[in-house]
């Protein structure tokens, strides 16, 4: 028997130095980082939002459970990545969405976004965003009907549209309002930066409070859970590009300021929690810069000239598709080799 306690004789096989960051630990960090923004979302949108988050997580976890081999189930599901995908998807959904759609979205995220590619680490696209893209293509009206953010007074109020029967339309009880991005695009109205910062605006469940999303993002950066180059590249490109457009076109048109670009819509949520997904972003430092610059450029381009007010979803998905190519062309030179 080998005595591990004898300090003079440590018998171990390589690797001798192990990184403490395992997949479950990394996932736990992301859960913690999302906590403040999720709590703020519940504050603004009440129990309905909580139900949406729970159903989309349930859809994701159940799908993972059904489509994973019985022998591998315990191991594959112990990293909680399926639930995290469900939470991320839920945070991108409008608060008045019928619950069955949230469940369907969670199940599509995992089924078509992850399991079909071969499980964790094999997918080309971010699963949560794939689920959202599916929902946006399938139910375009329900996915773009936004309720106003409420206060703590109507916390227990659940939208009647949330409780629609499966396959049935939601009956919307309140007048729908426009998101800051929608106001900017269609009405040429700017929303005050302070309300964008605190999150007291209409929008998807998780994309309201910029401040708390920034907290989560910075926490992840400090924990080295995410690659810093990607957010840096996105922020730089998006703000510089929108500043350039603003300067070229003049201030009185529908060209937003760089700060509005950064703090409105899903840009922060997408940047910190979806673009930096280690599976679907490039591996090389140079590749990360290219990836981030591409997203920052595309998101401003889609917001200004596309048909939709928000472009983060398709910007990230398009750059996800380009990731293998970026990886191939940014491989570092082997030391001593000529080319």
């Amino acid at each position, binding site marked *: 028997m080998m005595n591990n306690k004898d300090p003079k004789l440590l018998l171990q096989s390589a690797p001798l130095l192990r990184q403490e960051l395992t997949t479950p630990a990394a996932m736990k960090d992301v859960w913690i980082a999302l906590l403040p923004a999720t709590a703020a979302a519940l504050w603004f949108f009440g129990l309905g939002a909580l139900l949406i988050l729970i159903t989309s997580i349930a859809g994701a976890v159940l799908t993972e459970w059904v489509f994973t081999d019985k022998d591998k189930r315990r191991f594959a599901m112990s990293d909680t990545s399926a639930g995290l995908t469900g939470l991320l998807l839920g945070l991108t959904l409008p608060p008045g969405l*019928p619950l069955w*759609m949230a469940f369907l979205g969670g199940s599509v995220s995992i089924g*078509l976004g992850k399991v*079909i590619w071969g499980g964790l680490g094999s997918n080309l696209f971010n699963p949560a965003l794939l689920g959202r893209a*599916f929902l946006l*293509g*399938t*139910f*375009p009206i*329900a996915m773009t009907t936004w309720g106003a953010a409420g206060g703590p007074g109507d916390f227990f109020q659940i939208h009647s549209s949330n409780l*629609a029967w499966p*396959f*049935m*339309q*939601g009956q919307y009880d309140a007048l729908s309002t426009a998101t800051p991005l929608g106001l900017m695009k269609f009405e040429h109205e700017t929303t005050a930066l302070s309300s964008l910062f605190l999150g007291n605006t209409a929008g998807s469940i998780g994309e309201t409070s910029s401040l708390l999303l920034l907290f989560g993002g910075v926490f992840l950066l400090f924990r080295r859970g995410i690659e810093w180059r990607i957010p840096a590249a996105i922020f730089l490109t998006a703000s510089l590009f929108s500043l350039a457009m603003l300067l070229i076109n003049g201030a009185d048109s529908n060209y937003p300021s760089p700060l509005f670009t950064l703090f409105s819509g899903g840009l922060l949520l997408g940047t910190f929690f979806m673009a930096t997904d280690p599976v679907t972003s490039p591996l090389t430092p140079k590749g990360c810069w290219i990836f981030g610059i591409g997203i920052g450029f595309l998101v401003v381009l889609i917001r200004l000239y596309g048909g939709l007010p928000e472009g983060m979803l398709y910007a990230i998905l398009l750059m996800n598709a380009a990731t293998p190519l970026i990886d191939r062309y940014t491989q570092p030179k082997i030391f001593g080799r000529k080319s």
Partner: protein
Amino acid sequence: MATDSSAYEEMIKGLWRDNPVFVQVLGMCPMLAVTNSAINAVVMGLATFFVLVGSSFLVSSFKQWIPKQVRISLYIIIIATFVTVVDYSLLALLPAIHKELGAFIPLIVANCMILGRQEAFASKHNVKYAVMDAVGMSGGFMIALFALGSVREILGVGAFFGIDLFGTNFESWVIMILPPGGFLTLGLLLLFFNWFTERRREFLLKVAESDRMAYVDGDK
């Protein structure tokens, strides 16, 4: 009787084991383009059935007079003849559906499943086998079209053959009647088909193994 059972075999193989869509993955263009409703899918299936059976019959009957060097163009001419017949018949009988299917009726000429059957089967077998094979293949094609069309119509508009299933409150899955829905549904059907085939093979292997073990045990 032996020949009859093998002719029957030629027909059955197209329905399931060599299904032109699910196994050979041929004829994808009409498969994806016209299956946004069940009735369109069935009419397309019937048109393909007529064209494939007719041209297999002609190609097989004329096979000794078709020179090898120009066979493809001759097949195309034969197929195009039947397609023209179908085109004008549909225009006369079902003008509404003819309008909806549009360019995809003339495009049956370019369906590689039809040309493939002439090249691979009809030109090498006698008339009876060729016709049975064509019936099976186009039957399999029709089953696949019908499956895709039904799923897309039920989810996309909440109806089946135009009959409303869910009432007025139904939330239609817009993506299902658009091209991405065709790709998505076809992919999922292929997935299911392959999964089923795999399971069946595993099951048969298991049965064979247990039979063998029983035999070995009995021997002892």
